[in-house]
């Protein structure tokens, strides 16, 4: 007995790899560049987007028959904005330091192209359950890349993971640092995030030739 039908499962697995919002649709790049210097920030950002996109898709889908198409963008914006404010307030209440690191980028989830894209392309034309799955799937695909980039950048840029010094202490020269290893400062700069995303895209397309467009 499967909980999800084959078609529904595809809604989740598709955006994860073969139709990934970041690497294939190249959406949501700005936040992927800005906040992935630390793994923790990437994870929180992923969860925030997961929440906003999952709930938002359901709300829009429920309202899809009563939204006049002329003002649908405004309605969508109101829905995202409301959800983003909830996320922002929760972060400020329970993870103040982190919300300062993420600063303006939580607010900018509103303008994250993935969210508006899914509202427009999916939630307006599908039922709430399928919209929910689609939202979760896309947010997970986005989060997966974010966490991957955050992992690489924090590991090589600061020598830590989630703040724990996994490679040794750079000041006391323990661990890897005792043999002359040094952190790669380039990893902490945004251009390197672009290059890391680029490499992911490269690897993905070379494994799956059908993704290469002319």
């Amino acid at each position, binding site marked *: 007995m499967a909980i999800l039908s084959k078609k529904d499962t595809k809604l989740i697995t598709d955006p994860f790899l073969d139709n990934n919002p970041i690497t294939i649709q190249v959406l949501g790049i700005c936040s992927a560049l800005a906040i992935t210097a630390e793994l923790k920030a990437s994870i929180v950002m992923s969860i925030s987007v997961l929440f906003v996109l999952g709930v938002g898709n359901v709300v829009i889908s429920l309202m899809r028959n009563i939204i006049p198409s002329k003002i649908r963008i405004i309605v969508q914006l109101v829905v995202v904005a409301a959800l983003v404010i909830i996320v922002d307030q929760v972060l400020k209440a329970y993870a103040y330091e982190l919300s300062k690191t993420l600063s303006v980028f939580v607010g900018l989830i509103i303008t994250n192209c993935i969210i508006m894209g899914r509202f427009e392309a999916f939630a307006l034309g599908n039922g709430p359950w399928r919209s929910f799955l689609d939202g979760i799937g896309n947010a997970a695909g986005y989060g997966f890349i974010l966490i991957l980039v955050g992992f690489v950048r924090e590991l090589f840029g600061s020598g830590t993971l989630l703040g724990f010094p996994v490679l040794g202490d750079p000041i006391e020269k323990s661990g890897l640092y005792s043999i002359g*290893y040094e952190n*790669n*400062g*380039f*990893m902490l700069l945004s251009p390197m995030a672009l290059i890391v995303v680029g490499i992911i895209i490269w690897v993905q397309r070379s494994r799956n030739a059908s993704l290469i467009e002319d």
Partner: protein
Amino acid sequence: MSLKDKLHVIKQRYAGTKMAPAFNALHTFLYTPNEVTHNGTHVKAVDDLKRTMNTVIIALVPCLIFGMYNAGYQHYLAQGAIDKASGFLGASFWTVDNLIIGAWTILPLVVVSYGVGLAVEFLFAVIKGHEVEEGYLVTGMLVPLIVPVDIPLWMLAVAVIFGVVIGKEVFGGTGMNILNPALTIRAFLFFAYPTWMSGDKVWVHGAVERDQMIAAGATNLDAMSGETILGAYAQNKTLAYDYWDMFWGIIPGSVGETSKFLIIIGALFLIFTKIGSWRIIVSTLIGALAMGLIFNAVVDAGIISDTSKFYGLMSVPFWQHLIIGSILFGAVYMATDPVSAAQTNKGKWIYGFLIGFISIMIRVFNPAYPEGVFLAILLMNVFAPTIDHYVVQGNVKQRMKRLKVKTA
């Protein structure tokens, strides 16, 4: 059976397999290929890619050898073991001791640069199934010349992998790259490991190590330092070198860029053999002089006071910008890279002029980037296709106009 025949046999045995490009590369690197074209008309020219590359390498060898002597000389000078050399033929400069210590530090850089870079090239050739291209021969020689002597070898290796893969292979290999691979490697090092690429310690062999020993509690040692001319100017300090020292190159700096004299000889060689574009070289120097003149005019007009942090570099007489820093090396060996430079003649003038202009601007205005030449060249590499596009379009427009006049 001679080595050449053996290679032929090996090559034939592996023909068509995955490893074929690797053997072909080895073969063509050592000997002239034994294949001939069987059909079609073809142009036969003496200077193929390999010869072009070799010519540039020959032009670079004097800089490399000078760099070795200079590394040793700066090392002993900072230690206080030898006297300051006077002029190009100074007695304390061309000594065997200097050469030994210089070669000891610089040859590993060359070996790592070539070893890692060619390994990446071979790997990509085998994966993609194309022939190994000669493009890395020059890059591999340039890389050790544009880094500080004491750069850790693993950093260089990481940077070379990055530069060759991201700077070249992702675009399709030699001839397709947008950016100059050697400068991509330097830019990577500069942003990734800034403590090893700037400051007043890294330019002299042993200075960083000496600092660590002092920090660890060694009391019988003095700190060594060798500030570059640019570093001194940026802090409004007086110089310890005169202009002839700068011209001959007996100053601290990256391995191969210090001797303006040898770079000029290399430049003449490249222009004479028609490998390097004289338009780019000349226009780069004109651009640098123009920016220097503007800064001098600003100082003369009294717009900035001598307490300004830009005053030191702005008041440098314009012609001196050419003999301090690496503008000359960049103009001769980097900007002229035929792949990443502009292709049209008019475009070359614009491209070179802007390189010189922006280099000096970065040099003066941004103390965080004491030498902006590599940034300026990378920036113009990106713009080179745009420049070419507008030059070609301008030409098309002009001819269309002429056509209209005729038909009207």
